[in-house]
């Protein structure tokens, strides 16, 4: 698969998954852009992975986006796409998503890869560079937290 085809076919899904994780539309796009940029620079390696789009999402969740913030103005002016209002992410609601965002990064990664991207435990472990048993432990812990948040929505408040 060529990078252009990969980008066109996966970019929206990657953005929506990262947006669920971070809750800020522009931040999510910056993070995903950084993930795709790193995929572009390492495309020979990334294209052979079992789930390249999961690699992009995982990279995005770990990325630092300060350089995209500096370039945002230039990029927006260069785009011919329709701009999306910055507060669109605010439309996402629900205790489950709020609880997802409060999870530690590693647990969020596991939930995202296992439940949102439907990777199996082995593939998730390989992508994260951890043992399959560790994936299961993080998944169990994160699922407990999410279930608890849904069961007791008033126990914690959203801070952002």
């Amino acid at each position, binding site marked *: 698969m060529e990078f252009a085809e990969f980008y066109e076919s996966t970019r929206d899904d990657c953005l929506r998954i990262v947006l669920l994780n971070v809750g800020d539309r522009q931040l999510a796009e910056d993070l995903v*852009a950084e993930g795709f940029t790193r995929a572009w620079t390492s495309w020979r390696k990334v294209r052979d992975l079992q789930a390249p789009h999961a690699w992009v999402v995982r990279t995005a969740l770990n990325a*630092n986006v300060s350089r995209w913030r500096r370039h945002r103005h230039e990029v927006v002016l260069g785009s011919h796409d329709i701009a999306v209002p910055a507060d669109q992410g605010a439309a996402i609601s629900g205790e489950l998503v709020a609880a997802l965002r409060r999870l530690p990064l590693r647990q969020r990664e596991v939930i995202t890869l296992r439940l949102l991207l439907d990777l199996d435990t082995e593939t998730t472990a390989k992508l994260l560079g951890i043992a399959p048993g560790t994936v299961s432990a993080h998944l169990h812990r994160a699922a407990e937290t999410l279930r608890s948040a*849904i069961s007791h929505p008033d126990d914690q408040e959203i801070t952002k």
Partner: protein
Amino acid sequence: MNDNSALDTLRDSLSTARDSLTEVHMTMPLAAIERHGRTARRRHKLIGVAGTGAVAASAALVVGLTGVTGSAPAHSTGTIRTAAFTLVSHANGMATLTINRDVLLNASTLQSDLKQDGIPAMVTVGSFCSSDPAPADFFQVVSFQPRSRDNGPTMTINPAAMPAGTELSFGNFQLANSQQTSFALINTGAYTCTSSAPTAPPPSGVMLSYGGGTSPR
């Protein structure tokens, strides 16, 4: 409910949340991704060439390169040494920061050098910014090393452990006979700042007093 059906329920709920975002589209054109990719690739090559050719002057060269390249890649290696601090970037993406106990901190220089190292940070002198509640991951991001009599604080920073939407906050205060710096992780979009020197460590953070601070930068 057993584990599998509980996970299925969570999967369904998260998928529903994702599917509610069908109106959200990535606006970044492919050309912008490729352009930034080419820039990053050139930068990696530039750093590599510089590192190979000038071992003897490595410290000075890296300081010079910082100014030339503007934004170094997050995981480039090298050392930035100023009178006030030393910042060592490791190949695994982590960085070690040592603050000179006897020299006053130059906030903008440290903040800029941390950012070029892939570490978003707000460094302030005479004020300190914090979030309430604070992101809970501070001690996964920053680990302090034991201090010797002659050195100021030394810490290892792991930017990969920083949750999205957070940055580090360093607030330095020049006291009568010493310096005091508070360290915390803050939410980029939700924090408050105070110009009073903290009297206690921030929640999920650290406050250190050291040295005298006798000369700028």
